[in-house]
């Protein structure tokens, strides 16, 4: 019997591990009941490549170059000149009595060319150590250490490896607590922002809060040194000027923590997955996949999915799972099945509704409902024509 890490490695096959970030970790909360997604994500499989190979290429997560550029520009502007703008925000927008603040950039990494580890691995690790050191010193330094840490590096254990996370800023201290600062380029117009985008940003910030809480615990400082209140910095109205809002992410924390713990139970899910299942694309020397799509589909079919239309905007496998779920009421909407008395299949719903299929005893009540709806609909349409 292989250990969980070996099994996940076997499932991933020869390709490199997909690197997670706060956004992809936060996205795990959107369909927690899906075993296929849980396994693919835990194993770090490149779902976009798998989806393309089985004939369902996806555009999820592809951002416009123009939008990315503006986002980067805005973030740089907020952090510019030793966080001067950030300090102004903390004072003016949030009314914080901060005299002055140090600005410490934790973005510098040490890379040793002779080290066998990859440059990225080294850089992540060295930046994490730098952040850890800075946090240890600050956490013990007493009440007047006003510091902003730019580009810190945190980490969280997921799928048997460390996922490195880069919050935009960590601000210390407001009321003796560390605060996560999340800089986003969507606007707050007349004090209102797009609720969907805010929710996404808060989920992401919550992942950072958890990572920083874990670090504090490791340092023996206690999780409650990290505030569940995060600072959201966005462009104000139609300008490039930043504005800030404080949001409590306690709810998001609970949801994400539960989901991360659930990923520990990947072990359970794996028990039901045959040993030989792998998503290895068997890339040739040019990186082109040689695995046959049919074979890959067979592997996917071994792990059950739980498709709902939301998957199309949350998971790279969405379009594949939709094609697989064709004929199921789930394809039509989240609530359709409940509206039709719990019937999974569209053809069965129609057969019961039209009386073509005699219901078994347990479906008698459902069939009655469906027949009532169908007859009403038919009568109304007939009356109208």
């Amino acid at each position, binding site marked *: 019997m292989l250990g969980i890490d070996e099994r996940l490695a076997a499932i991933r096959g020869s390709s490199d591990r997909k690197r997670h970030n706060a956004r992809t970790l936060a996205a795990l909360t959107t369909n927690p009941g899906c075993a296929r997604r849980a396994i693919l994500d835990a194993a770090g499989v490149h779902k976009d490549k798998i989806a393309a190979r089985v004939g369902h290429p996806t555009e999820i997560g592809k951002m416009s170059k123009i939008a990315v550029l503006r986002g980067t520009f805005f973030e740089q502007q907020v952090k510019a000149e030793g966080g001067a703008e950030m300090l102004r925000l903390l004072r003016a927008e949030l009314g914080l009595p901060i005299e002055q603040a140090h600005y410490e950039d934790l973005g510098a990494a040490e890379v040793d060319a002779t080290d066998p580890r990859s440059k990225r691995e080294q850089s992540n690790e060295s930046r994490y150590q730098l952040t850890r050191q800075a946090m240890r010193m600050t956490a013990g330094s007493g009440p007047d250490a006003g510091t902003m840490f730019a580009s810190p590096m945190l980490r969280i254990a997921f799928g048997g490896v460390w996922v490195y996370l880069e919050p935009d800023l960590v601000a210390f201290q407001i009321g003796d607590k560390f605060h996560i600062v999340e800089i986003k380029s969507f606007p707050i*117009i007349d004090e209102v922002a797009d609720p969907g985008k805010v929710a996404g940003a808060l989920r992401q910030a919550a992942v950072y809060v958890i990572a920083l809480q874990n670090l504090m615990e490791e340092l023996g400082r206690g999780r409650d040194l990290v505030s569940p209140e995060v600072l959201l910095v966005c462009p104000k109205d139609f300008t490039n000027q930043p504005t800030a809002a404080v949001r409590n992410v306690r709810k998001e924390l609970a949801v994400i923590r539960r989901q991360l713990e659930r990923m520990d139970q990947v072990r359970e899910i794996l028990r039901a997955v045959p040993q030989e299942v792998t998503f290895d694309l068997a890339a040739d020397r040019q990186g082109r996949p040689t695995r046959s799509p049919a074979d890959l589909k067979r592997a996917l079919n071994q792990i059950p999915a739980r498709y709902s*239309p939301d998957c199309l905007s949350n998971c790279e496998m969405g379009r594949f799972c939709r094609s697989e779920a064709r004929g199921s009421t789930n*394809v039509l909407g989240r609530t359709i099945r409940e*509206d*039709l008395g719990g019937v999974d299949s569209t053809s069965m*719903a129609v057969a019961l*509704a039209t009386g073509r299929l005699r219901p078994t005893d347990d479906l008698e009540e459902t069939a009655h409902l469906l027949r009532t709806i169908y007859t009403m609909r038919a009568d109304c349409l007939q009356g*109208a024509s």
Partner: protein
Amino acid sequence: MSGLTAMARVLAAETGTRQAICTLRHLHVAARPIVLVPITLAGETNAPLAVLVGDDRDRPQLIVTNRPRVREERLRFAERLGAELLLPIANLARRTEVVPTTRRTTTVRRRAVEAPQIWVPNPAGVEFLRLLGRMTRFRSTVGQWAVAPSVPTLGIWATWFAEQSEFADSSVLVATTQALTAMWATGQSDLEDGNLAALMAWIDPPPGTSAADAAARAEDTIAFPPAGPATDPQFDAVVLEPALRDLDAAPDDQVRERVLARLASGLRDQMQPTWDRVWRAIDLLDAVPAAPHVAVRWERDRERFYAFADYLNTIGLPQARQDGAVRGARRLTDLEVRKSTFDAQRAYDDALVMAEYRLSGEAFRGIVVDADADRVVRPSSRRVRRPLITVTTRDPARLAPGDRELRDPQRPTQEAAVIDVESDGAQTRIRLELSGGLGSGTTGPAPSGSVPAVGDVVTYTRLKAGGYTHRGTFPNREDTPWTHGGPPAEYYVPTSHDAAEDWS
């Protein structure tokens, strides 16, 4: 979602054809609608890139921002859009008529003979107009930051249209995807229906193609550019970004003109398919007969349009950024009241809409099996007509003796009260006492047709489609209590700060 709509979806998926969820159209379709297809620059806040606009489907006006990253050019864009939209609006506002009334009153109400109707591809198009309105309505026409007078006027109108569209019963600004899904169910989910290309593929597939195949094909954003205002990232990378770069680097006007022409043609290619789809959608909806209440609601739209045009001529200050407490509360009540009246009117007009209420037990349809049309009772000093009827129904009606104020859409002025209910599982017998709509006097038989006869099919519901509705009592603006911030200013007067507001 409800049982009947869910069934329509399932039937659409099984048969591969669109399924009507209404038997009539409940949206007004204007004789000369204006279509507006906007596109914005990615990453920026509602930065207009281009629109296709106009009321002639064969000759859309293309307006492209010359330098989309420059604030003045965005305002110039608003000015050019104003030139297209404000003239037809002003012309319509000038042609007015007196609202006929039966009430004895000295005040004469007027309304426009016709109101404008703007179609955008989707709800994001409505949001585009709302933000464009917010961005331009506070601009000053004098001073250092002066803009053309049409800019703030366009902003005020754009805001008005966007505000109206929040009301369920208004048809002055229509999001095409919503208009279509209110009429037809497809074999795909709401999420996919939100893509106009996929929705139209399902509703109106090209000949010889199945709806499902056509819809699947429509998800390719290269062949089927998005309906906006957000652009396709690949379009941004391949066409837009290089064009913007060349525009910045252009050494002279000649080169600039060439790049602009290239950009304009690229943008037109992105918008033209959506433009065509919106017009096709208008045709499809126009071909469905309108429900009786559509004209009634459009009259109210025409009244509101005239009233706002009148306000603009007399006071003309832009709408505030936020509502005061009283206005906000009123607005919320209006949203609710108008929504429930709209729902009721649709159910009255359309048996298939009423069926939703029958399924949930809020209405029932049945056959009159017994009727005492001439019953007269004397509850107090006066004798009154109170006919009794007994109706049997197979609907899952949820009623109890004592339930009152039920109405049959065929006799909206008559009320029914439940006397008793008997159910034997398959069928329910309901005895009803009727009042109102019975003419005057109590001698002789009730006027013919005023009481349902044995064998008639009747539908009773608690829904109320018209008449007086209580709209809540609110203090006057000047009496706003201090708990709610005290009295706000009557109007918001834009400041010099507003005029200088950045749009970057």
